[in-house]
C-alpha cells in the first residue's frame, strides 16, 4: 500500500465545508514532492454527497457511514472512526481545518494515535521527507517553520491559507467500514437553535468590514453593514464592540475571537490594539478609517483615512454604488 496523507473532512448540514476543500488543495500541493497519495476521509450519517464533493479535490476518498454522527457532537466520533481506519490502513499524516470541529478532532486524534500536532498552518511545504508547516506566532511578530520529529503527525490549517482548486480529474469514492466500537462518550445534541446575526462566516469572507469602539453603538454597526453590503463582504468586530453588546460574538476578530485572512480588511473606528491585530494582520490589504492618525493601526494599514467614520464610510458606500451603477 502506498504511503499517504489523509484529509479529514468536515461536514456541516450534509455538505462538505469549504475549509476541507482548502485543506485538500494544500495536501495536493505537497503530494508530488512528498511522493505520497492524498486520500480524503468523510465520516457522516449520510457521507455520499460530501464524499463526491471531496473527490473533485483528491484522487481517492474513503466514505464512512456512521449513523451516530447525526444528532451528536461529531468531533469525538469522527476522531474514533478515523483512528480505526488508520489502524487498518495507516497514513503518515493527517490534515484538518483549524476551525472548532477540526481542532476538537485533532486533539482527540492526537491522543488516540499518540501523534503530535502542528496547529494553525498558514503554509505547507515538504523537506527531509516530512511536511514543513509555516505558522504566524506571538501576535504575528514571528513567522516560524516547523516540522515533526517522527514520521507521523497531525496538521491543522487556517482558513484562507490556500485558495481551493479542484483537481484536473475527479477522484474515486470507496465506501469503508473501519469497524471497532466507539469507546469515548458521545454527546447528544438535544436542540439546535438558529440565531439571527449568528451566521457570520467571517473566516471565509474575501472582504471583511469591521467596526470597533469608534462605531459607538448598535446603530453605528448599520453603517458598517452598509459598507460590507456595498463591497459584498462580511461584518467583523473588535472585542470592545462585542463586550458592549453592539454585535454578536460570532463576528469577533482577534485573540479570543476568530482569525481572518481576507483579501481586504476595512477597519472602521478600530485602534488596532495587539489583541485585535493578531486576528487580522495577515489580511492582504488593510484599509482603516480612524480619527486618530496616531492609532496603532496607522502602523500596519496600507491606507489610512484620517477622518470621521460616520462621514467617510457612507461616502465610500455611495462611491461604490455609483461605480457599479
Amino acid at each position, binding site marked *: 500500500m502506498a504511503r499517504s496523507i489523509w484529509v479529514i473532512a468536515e461536514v456541516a448540514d450534509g455538505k462538505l465545508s469549504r475549509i476541507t476543500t482548502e485543506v485538500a488543495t494544500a495536501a495536493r500541493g505537497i503530494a508530488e514532492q512528498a511522493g505520497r497519495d492524498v486520500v480524503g476521509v468523510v465520516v457522516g450519517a449520510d457521507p455520499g454527497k460530501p464524499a463526491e464533493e471531496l473527490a473533485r479535490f483528491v484522487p481517492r476518498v474513503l466514505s464512512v457511514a456512521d449513523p451516530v454522527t447525526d444528532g451528536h*457532537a461529531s*468531533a*469525538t466520533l469522527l476522531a474514533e472512526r478515523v483512528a480505526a481506519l488508520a489502524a487498518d490502513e495507516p497514513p503518515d499524516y493527517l490534515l484538518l481545518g*483549524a476551525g*472548532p470541529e477540526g*481542532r*476538537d478532532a485533532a*486533539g*482527540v486524534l*492526537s*491522543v488516540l494515535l*499518540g501523534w*503530535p*500536532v502542528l*496547529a*494553525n498552518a498558514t503554509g505547507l511545504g515538504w523537506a527531509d521527507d516530512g511536511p514543513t508547516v509555516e505558522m504566524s*506566532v506571538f501576535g504575528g*511578530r*514571528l*513567522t*516560524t517553520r516547523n*516540522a*515533526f*520529529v517522527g514520521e507521523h*503527525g497531525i496538521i*491543522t490549517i487556517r482558513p484562507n491559507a490556500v485558495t481551493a482548486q479542484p483537481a484536473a480529474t475527479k477522484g474515486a469514492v470507496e465506501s469503508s467500514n473501519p469497524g471497532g466500537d466507539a469507546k*469515548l*462518550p*458521545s454527546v*447528544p*445534541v*438535544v436542540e*439546535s*437553535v438558529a440565531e439571527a446575526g*449568528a*451566521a457570520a462566516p467571517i473566516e471565509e469572507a474575501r472582504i471583511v468590514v469591521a467596526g470597533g469602539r469608534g462605531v459607538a453603538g448598535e446603530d453605528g454597526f448599520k453603517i458598517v453593514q452598509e459598507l460590507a453590503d456595498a463591497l459584498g463582504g462580511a461584518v467583523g468586530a473588535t472585542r470592545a464592540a462585542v463586550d458592549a453588546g453592539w454585535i454578536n*460574538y*460570532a463576528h469577533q476578530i482577534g*485573540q*479570543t475571537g476568530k482569525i481572518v485572512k481576507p483579501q*481586504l480588511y476595512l477597519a472602521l473606528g478600530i485602534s488596532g*490594539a*495587539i*489583541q485585535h491585530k*493578531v486576528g487580522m494582520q495577515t489580511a492582504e*490589504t*488593510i*484599509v482603516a478609517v480612524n480619527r486618530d492618525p496616531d492609532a496603532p493601526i496607522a502602523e*500596519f494599514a*496600507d*491606507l*489610512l*483615512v484620517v*477622518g*470621521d467614520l460616520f462621514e*467617510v464610510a*457612507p*461616502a465610500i458606500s455611495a*462611491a*461604490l454604488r455609483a461605480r457599479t451603477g
Partner: protein
Amino acid sequence: MRIVVLMKPVPDTAAGGERLTAEMRLDRAAVPAVVNANDEYALEAAIKLTEAGDGEITVLAMAPSNAPETMRKALAMGAHRGVLVTDSSLEGSDTLSTARVLAAALETLEYDLVFAGADTSDGGAGVVGPGVAALLGLPLLSYAAKIEPDETAGQVRVRRISPTGFDVLEAPMPALVVCTQALGEPRYPSLKGIMAARSKEIVTRSLADLDLGGQAVGGAASGTKVLESTPPPPRAATRVVREPADVAADQVVAFLAERRII
C-alpha cells in the same frame, strides 16, 4: 460542585517582545506572564456557577516554577486553590505531552467539571482540552457560550456555538467543557479577593508525583520542532489620506480598484 479550571500563564501579548531561545523555545523569562485570556472566561464561568453554593474551584496549571505569581490572580478572582505541575523536564513540551500531564494531574483531583479555554494566546492550537477529555474518557462539550450543570441529575447542559447559532449538548458529569468569551467578561479581582488570595494554597507537584503510566512527556519527548523563525516581511508604508469625506471615499475606491479588490 467541584470545578477544575485548566489555566496557562502566557506571555502578555500587550507587552510585546516575545522571542525564542537558542533552543527555539518560547523565552518565558523575556516577557511578563498573564493568565491566558480564554482561561479567564473559563474561570469567570466557574466562579459564577459556584458563588451561590458551596462549590470549590481548583486552578490547574502546567508551567514554570514562577507560575504561582500568575496563578494568584486566578485565586484573587475567586478560585479556591491552585495546583501547579512544574518540572524542568517539561520545558518545551508539545500539546500531546501537555494533555498527558494535565490528565495525569486531574487523576489526583476530584471534580464534577473540568473547564479549559478555547485556545491559548501563545500556542493557540486549541487541542489540549479535547485531548485531556479523550485521555480521561470524559464527555467533551466544546465552544461553550453557556454552561448549566444540574447537580441533582448529575448532568450538564452546554450551548455550543454553531455556524448558525448554537447547539444544546447534554452529558453526564464529570465532563470537560471548552470555554469561550461568549460566557461573559471576567471580573477584576477585588481588594478583598487579592488579600484572600495571599493565604490560599498552591500545591506544587513534580512529574515524579504523577502516574503517567509510562507515557513519554516533556521537552525530550516533543514530537514537533521549530526549524527556523523569521520576522514577517514588513508591510509597505502606510498611505495617509486627509481629505473631506467624499474626496477620501473616491481615493479609497480608486485604491481598491488599483489593487483589483473591486
